[in-house]
């Protein structure tokens, strides 16, 4: 009984932990501009993250090696370093965006300007990373993140024409004035939001933190293949709410306040409060995950002790990196850069950086030296190769699309 509870808890936290500032902003933006015509990207991205995370999780469970261990082992110090720099830049950008997201969410509650919140949030994130127990952090924030189910309830309460929404989704019915390049750009952004590389760094390092063994592969798979898709449904609900409320009015979503507005209109103050709590939990949880991922990546490349499974003073360098990362992120935000803009960049650069870590994981997942009998089966490899092609194509297309569409503003 206790074991089933643990599995259930794992699924719930996977759902709550799936959505972050990138998903919130991108899905609402796309819903407001394109209705449900880009809805197909969510399942494609979610299946991709499932394939990627399952491989990385399996390697972590069997060999106790996390993503950047493998990157350096397979690609060597030089390619590995370039890879580290690229992935780290994207993860840090996401970290900045998440902290900004927490500050924006707190601004909605208090109407105190988000810049005043930034130092407090950065300090709190650092404190949690320093003191909190790994599993407690993951469970509490993941469960609170479930409050975002409010979006699904709101969509239902808004009483949309479901047939119309389904038709938009199935017929890829792009609104007339938008061009196909803009459409493609937002498809890349949505893909990047769903398949953020840090999720996999965190997932595999978390597996090492929680001392998974080959016996835990089954539970890990259940979490991935149930938790992530259900989290993906939340993304669709966010897009749906924006499509119903904003698309007919011609509103473009540029702030976090707008993302939550449909929920307020549909469910009133209580519903809005629940969803804003979800904003805070989801972005705060993701801020912890990205912050840790920054430390994990650097430590795993250079080999020094990392992780919260040892005492803080046994992993001093790792905790020093976390302090510096939190300070830097707060510093970036204090230049009064718009966190929503940082988010828009972070999701596109996530899509660009994806092949860097995806490819080495795919190779190692086939190596019996690491995995013994648990190497990729036929299904994992067919999906793995299909997604290898897909992430490379998306990565190559992202920058030209970004320039051509001026980040979707043209």
């Amino acid at each position: 009984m206790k074991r089933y509870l643990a599995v259930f808890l794992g699924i719930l936290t996977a759902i709550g932990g799936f959505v972050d500032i990138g998903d919130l902003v991108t899905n609402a933006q796309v819903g407001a501009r394109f209705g449900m015509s880009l809805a197909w990207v969510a399942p494609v991205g979610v299946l991709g993250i499932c394939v990627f995370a399952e491989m990385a999780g399996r390697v972590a469970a069997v060999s106790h090696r996390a993503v950047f261990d493998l990157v350096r082992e397979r690609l060597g110090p030089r390619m590995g370093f370039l890879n580290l720099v690229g992935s780290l830049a994207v993860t840090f950008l996401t970290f900045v965006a998440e902290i900004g997201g927490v500050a924006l969410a707190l601004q909605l509650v208090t109407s105190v300007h988000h810049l005043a919140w930034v130092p407090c949030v950065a300090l709190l994130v650092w404190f949690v990373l320093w003191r909190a127990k790994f599993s407690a952090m993951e469970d509490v924030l993941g469960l609170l993140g479930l409050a975002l189910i409010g979006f699904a309830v709101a969509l239902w309460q808004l009483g949309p024409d479901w047939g119309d929404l389904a038709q938009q989704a199935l017929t890829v019915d792009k609104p007339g004035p938008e061009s196909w390049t803009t459409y493609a750009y937002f498809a890349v952004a949505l893909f990047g939001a769903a398949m953020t590389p840090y999720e996999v760094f965190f997932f595999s390092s978390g597996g090492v933190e929680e001392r998974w063994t080959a016996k835990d592969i089954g539970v890990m798979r259940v979490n991935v293949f149930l938790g992530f898709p259900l989290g993906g449904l939340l993304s669709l609900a966010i897009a749906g709410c924006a499509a119903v409320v904003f698309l007919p009015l011609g509103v473009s979503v540029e702030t976090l306040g707008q993302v939550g507005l449909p929920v307020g209109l549909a469910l009133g103050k209580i519903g809005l409060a629940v969803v804003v709590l979800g904003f805070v939990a989801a972005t705060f949880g993701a801020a912890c995950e990205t912050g840790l991922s920054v430390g994990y990546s650097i430590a795993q490349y250079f080999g020094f002790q990392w992780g919260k499974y040892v005492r803080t003073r046994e992993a001093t360098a790792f905790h020093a990196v976390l302090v510096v990362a939190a300070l830097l992120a707060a510093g970036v935000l204090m230049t009064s850069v718009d966190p929503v803009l940082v988010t828009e960049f972070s999701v596109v650069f996530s899509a660009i950086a994806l092949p860097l870590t995806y490819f080495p994981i795919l190779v190692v997942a086939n190596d019996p030296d690491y995995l013994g009998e648990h190497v990729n089966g036929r299904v994992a490899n067919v999906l793995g190769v299909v997604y290898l092609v897909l992430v490379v194509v998306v990565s190559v297309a992202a920058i030209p699309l970004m320039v051509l569409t001026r980040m979707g503003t043209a």
Partner: protein
Amino acid sequence: MGSRSSDRRPLLGSLLLVLALVVGCAVSEPEPADWSESSARALESAASAVATARLALSGEKDGDLWRSYAVVLLADAEEAAGSAADQVAVVQTPRGREKRAEQVRDLLGRAEDAVRAARQELVAGKPITAERLARLERLRQRLLREAGR
């Protein structure tokens, strides 16, 4: 051969630099088509800001939003309307479009004023009238019509 081509490198570099400076510093007058496109885009974002303001006000009126949430929404919308107005104000108007430019600037100014007034009234705690909501809706439709969408 090698030494001659390396002699030329600084020359080539300075030529490129001069070219870049000339191109970069010249006052550019946008093509009329580009100008229409960018003013249409500014009108659209102003319409978006006005629509957001109206949703925020009506949400507050119906008790769906708490005060600080609505204020933040309105402040952001005000900023968006302001930057839409700036977008057109900073661009040189192409010849023959002066009248149209005047009209666009006037509309964008009205949008900005309307959103600001809405924010001020909300902060001052004045009751939100149906009349104000209707006016914002009319303004939004006008902006979108002018944008040609």
